């Protein structure tokens, strides 16, 4: 129910209890996806009237113990303590939705999965022993059951509001599983790959951003991660025709969604083609098994 602007926040616990309880959680991430919620300036105060924001440290110091009706989870799991914490959050949440590439596909920090993490530590810290970290960055779905994964680096605010509305109404979110190409068509953007020969990941990338990059005369760089059933081998052939070598194609699939199974497979194919870090392929295989076991979008 709605509360008027003048209602005292502590006046009516029964009113608060009647509203669905929303929690927002942070794991390893840049905060950009949580910020996307705060960037819904026009919707923020109406939303705060519709739901009880029970846990959202970025916005409030007032916290409420679980259970929660809807938990939004940002970030990937990179420490032992976080691996335990996500289990506790799942247990306290009726519905759990991941927001963004880190929570859904491990994020840019999943590049460690292809490297020796001790080497990473030594590159950044003089005394690595002070720092506690896991050797991998894994998506939330590698640890607990996830009710919905909202892709994007960062997520799109309109899609976020749709997901929140849908779960509060008890329905599935109406989120397209098509590619960025469909959004270019809808927007009337001339295809940058066809018209200008600009390499573009749009044909294999999940829609949702509104096809921003091509509208800015740039090829899509895949920050929303793979669409459902992408044909990456066909795209890689086109990218090769446009002059990209194996090293470059390997790189474009190893950015913000490197651990998403379809992009992982594409970067592995490029590596086997003689490109990037051929010595890392063992590590990739291990991580692929971990992630694919939990992800229904795995390219078979």
């Amino acid at each position, binding site marked *: 129910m709605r509360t008027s*602007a003048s209602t005292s*926040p502590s006046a009516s616990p029964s009113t608060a209890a009647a509203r669905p309880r929303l929690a927002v959680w*942070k*794991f*390893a*991430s*840049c*905060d*950009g*996806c*949580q910020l*996307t919620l*705060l*960037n819904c*300036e*026009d919707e*923020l*105060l109406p939303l*705060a009237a519709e739901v009880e924001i029970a*846990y959202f*440290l*970025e*916005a*409030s*110091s*007032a*916290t409420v*113990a679980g259970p929660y009706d809807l938990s939004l989870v940002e*970030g990937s799991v*990179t*420490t032992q303590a*976080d691996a335990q914490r996500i289990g506790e959050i799942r247990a306290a949440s009726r519905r759990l939705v991941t927001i963004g590439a880190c929570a859904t596909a491990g*994020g840019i*920090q999943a*590049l460690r999965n292809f490297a020796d*993490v001790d080497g*990473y*530590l*030594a*590159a*950044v*810290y*003089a*005394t690595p022993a*002070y*720092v506690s*970290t896991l050797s991998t*960055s894994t998506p939330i779905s590698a640890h607990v059951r996830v009710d919905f994964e909202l892709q994007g*680096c*960062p997520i799109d605010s309109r899609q976020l509001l749709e997901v929140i509305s849908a779960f509060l109404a008890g329905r599935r979110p109406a989120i397209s599983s098509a590619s960025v190409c469909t959004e270019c068509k809808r927007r009337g953007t001339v295809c940058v790959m066809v018209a200008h020969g600009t390499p573009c990941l749009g044909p294999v990338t999940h829609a949702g*951003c509104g096809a*921003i*990059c091509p509208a*800015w*005369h*740039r090829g899509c760089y895949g*920050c929303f991660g793979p669409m459902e059933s992408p044909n990456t081998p066909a795209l890689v052939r086109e990218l090769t025709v446009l002059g990209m070598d194996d090293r*470059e194609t390997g*790189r474009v699939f190893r*950015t913000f969604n490197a651990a998403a199974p379809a992009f992982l497979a594409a970067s592995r194919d490029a590596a086997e083609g003689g490109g990037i870090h051929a010595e890392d392929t063992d590590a990739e295989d291990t991580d692929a098994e971990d992630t694919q076991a939990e992800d229904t979008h795995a390219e078979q």
Partner: protein
Amino acid sequence: MPSSRRITVPPLTRVEGEGRLLIRVSDGRVDETRLNIFEPPRFFEALLRGRAYTEAADITSRICGICPVAYQLSALAAIEQICGVGVDGQLAALRRLLYCGEWIESHALHVFLLHLPDFLGCDSGLELAREHPAVVRPGLELKKIGNTLMTLIGGRAVHPVNARVGGWYRAPTRGELDRLVGPLERARDIARDTARFVAGLDFPDDEVGAVFVALRQSGQYAIERGRIASSEGLDIAAADYDSHFVEEQVPWSTALHSTLAPLPPLPPHAPLAPHAMSAAGGSYLVGPLARFALNARWLAPAARETAAEVGLRPPERNPFRSIIVRCVEMVHAADEALRIIGDYTEPAFPAVPARPRAGIGHGVTEAPRGLLYHRYSTDRDGTILDAKIVAPTSQNQRPLEEDLRDVVERSLDLPEADLARRCERVIRNHDPCISCATHFLTLDIDRG
């Protein structure tokens, strides 16, 4: 045995990956303050190795969703130095314009949703919105205008996509920028009104003693370029950063501490090594207080007038009053954006050609929270061999601990709950990135 106690201010509930404060007290004196930052390491400097020079801006923007433009433009400045290209004229003005949007967005977030609740006794900006809608609703409008500016130039507000090595993918049209004039005039008014409002708040006594460090550019309130200057007379190019500033690791934090190296400086460009353990140098503060202290004379007239009207004079050393400086900087950013738009002519090309080269480049810009330094070395085909990034929060960590020590020492007679709340406020004054966890501390006392 002297009477001693150990005050730990741990994370509230299940807030791993954030911060914790430990204070040791004996005989009425604070022996030690340690701000633990548990943010899990994400290893950007390591994962950049082997990537292309064209990827540094987009990859490092993912360090912070609140100030992605700062990361993009520090990275591009460093890479363009390696490539030997200068981005000037309208292409440079557009970068400053995009940065103005980020200052407005980030400062508005901190002022209205994170900082102001402290002064008005609320738990959150949302509660504040119920109690003081006349203040918060225009604040959200101001924040939205910052985001609108970033979206128009950059494609989106979080991790914008338009900036590239040598310039932009697409330069905005004259007509697109004209649409921002009305909103930016409104933003300038809101920021000015907010400055007047916050100047009337009750400010506890506090004074930071650290040296101020900020970019300085003659004739402009430095944002996206300039030389590195200090309140003690330092005046160096970005390329000399490594010879004057030292980063060190401390056992209690995943954020590296930065200090101003004791003289004489290290040899220039000495080690392309990991962040070294070092002898302790002097602490220094970056951010709004430092910028205002060093560059107030270059503020836009509207911002200078606002500062004078609300009684803000450089140097301002009370971190509680940084909220007023942020408002003045928002007036400046809106006014500066209007000036850039007024002078804008569409460039003939959105970018100048930039070829990869082997070399070392340094880039430094003023993130909303303060100086942000990037250094890259690349090989002939532009592959990144080494990267070093020094964020504002690691530079401010030591002066923040010193500030906490002073405040705690003067406040030991406060009840514990009030002392904890005072500590949280001191931390938030500096808008550290971990302040995403607003009000993230509770107090636990272990009497020794």
